Structures are given as structure tokens and as C-alpha cells.
């Protein structure tokens, strides 16, 4: 990390995620913070989906939101207004991408600035070669029995030695 701003606390991130969920669902069923990663989600899970949003500038890094496609489908059905509708990957990607974008934008505003927010990228399924021990989770939550994990990964800016 460059700059001196501190990363937001896990409590702050959980509160933010709650506000984001509420703005999409308009209800009180919000993600609950857990103290640690449940064993079942310590590594990649079959149904997982991740939204990654890069931040570049005075702070360089990325925010990753990981949850399940099933959880995103619940949110998407609430937004698109038809509980029986078959959702395409594009609609799920749209929803989880926007969730990640809003969380990242709000976190960026408390980090060292100025910096820019990149467009979200969404991946369905586990990353190739990812192992359970690779998973970094700064804030672990549970929503409707689905994991909701937010990670902030700092990327050090390139120096002359890196070139």
C-alpha cells in the first residue's frame, strides 16, 4: 500500500455490504459477519462467483467480492422482479459486478487518494489452480446460508527495479 490511509476495518466493510445489500433488496435480511472462514468455504466452492474491481492511483490494489451464484440469483430476482425468471450468466454477472463496484467505490473513498476505480471483472467458478490455502478473506459474512467474502489485496506499484 502506498499512502498512509488505513484499510477499513472488517466491521466497517460488513456495515457497508449491509447497506449495499439493502439498496438492492430493500429488506432487513443482511449479511452477518463471521469471525472466521467456515471450513466449507475455506477453498474454492463449485457455485462460487467473484467480482474483482481494481483501484489504481495513490492506493494500488483490488477488491474481490466472493459469493455464490445462488446468492446472486436471489438478489437478481429481487431486482428484476420475477421470482420465476431464468437468469442468464450475463444478468448474474451484471448484479455481482455492480455489487463489487459499489463496495469498491466506497472503500476507495477512505483510502489514500486520488485514485481511479476500474470496471469490475466477474468470474464464475474457482480460479484455475487456486488452493484452499490461497484464499485471503478480510471480511467473512454469511447471508441466507451463502458465504459473502470481501478481500482487499494491495498491489505495490512498479518500481524501476521491477522494470
Amino acid at each position, binding site marked *: 500500500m502506498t499512502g498512509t490511509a488505513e484499510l477499513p476495518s472488517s466491521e466497517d466493510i460488513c456495515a457497508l455490504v449491509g447497506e449495499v445489500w439493502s439498496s438492492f433488496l430493500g429488506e432487513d435480511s443482511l449479511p452477518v459477519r463471521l469471525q472466521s472462514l467456515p471450513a466449507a468455504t475455506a477453498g474454492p466452492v463449485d457455485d462460487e462467483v467473484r467480482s474483482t474491481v481494481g483501484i489504481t492511483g495513490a492506493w494500488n490494489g483490488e477488491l474481490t467480492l466472493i459469493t455464490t451464484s445462488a446468492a446472486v440469483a436471489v438478489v437478481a430476482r429481487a431486482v428484476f422482479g420475477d421470482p420465476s425468471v431464468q437468469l442468464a450468466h450475463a444478468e448474474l454477472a451484471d448484479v455481482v459486478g455492480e455489487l463489487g463496484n459499489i463496495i469498491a467505490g466506497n472503500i476507495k473513498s477512505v483510502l489514500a487518494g486520488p485514485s481511479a*476505480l476500474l470496471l469490475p471483472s466477474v468470474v464464475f467458478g474457482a480460479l484455475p489452480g487456486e488452493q484452499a490455502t490461497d484464499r485471503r478473506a478480510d471480511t467473512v459474512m454469511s447471508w441466507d446460508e451463502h458465504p459473502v467474502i470481501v478481500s482487499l489485496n494491495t498491489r505495490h506499484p512498479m518500481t524501476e527495479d521491477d522494470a
Partner: protein
Amino acid sequence: MIIDDSRAMRMILRRIMAAAGFEATEAGDGHEALSSLEIATDVPDIALIDWNMPNMNGLEFVKAIRPVQRYSHMTLMMVTSEGEQAQIVRALAAGAHEYLVKPFTPEAILQKLQLLGLTSVGARS
């Protein structure tokens, strides 16, 4: 007019605007919004504009539209996850009239509309 690259966000905003009596058109980025405005018979009263979008972002859209006489009565409101103070200042300096950081409540949108004098039922968006 709702300009946001997320279809879900456009849907959320459309629902809020409809509840307030506004009829909204949509665009997925600044370019699409400009193209749509060029052929529109009626210019919308307000545009709700996301910042981070592909092709043409919200700030570029504001800068493109602000000097055009035909759109001079349009109220431009940024609705974005960009909450950094410097970005808010940039948007307002470029010509945006209001700024709302996502996530928002429907009440927050309606309050902004009221502040802008845009709450009358039947008004266009």
C-alpha cells in the same frame, strides 16, 4: 434518463423514478445516451448518471453535454459509487448539479429530486 452500465442498477433507479411519477429512458453508457438524446423529440428534464462506464464515462458525458444549448435545461445528477471528495468536486466543476453516492435509499433519490424541484407527478425524466 438513467445512464448506467449495470442493467440491475437501471432497473432499481427506474422503479424509484416510476414511483415518483417519472417516466424514464435508459442508456448503458455516455455514448449511447448522447446518441439517444440526438434523436429524441423531447429532451429529458433530468439525467441520473453513473461515473464508471465503458466507452464514455459519466464525467465525459457531463462535459460533452454541458455546453450544448439544446440540453441546457437538463438537470445532471451523478449517481455513482465514486465517493472520493476530489471526484465529487470534479463532477460538480464539470457541470453536474447534484451528486449521490451509491448505495442509496429510494428516499435519498426522492430527497434530491425534491431539492432540484423535480418532484411533480407527470414530469419527464
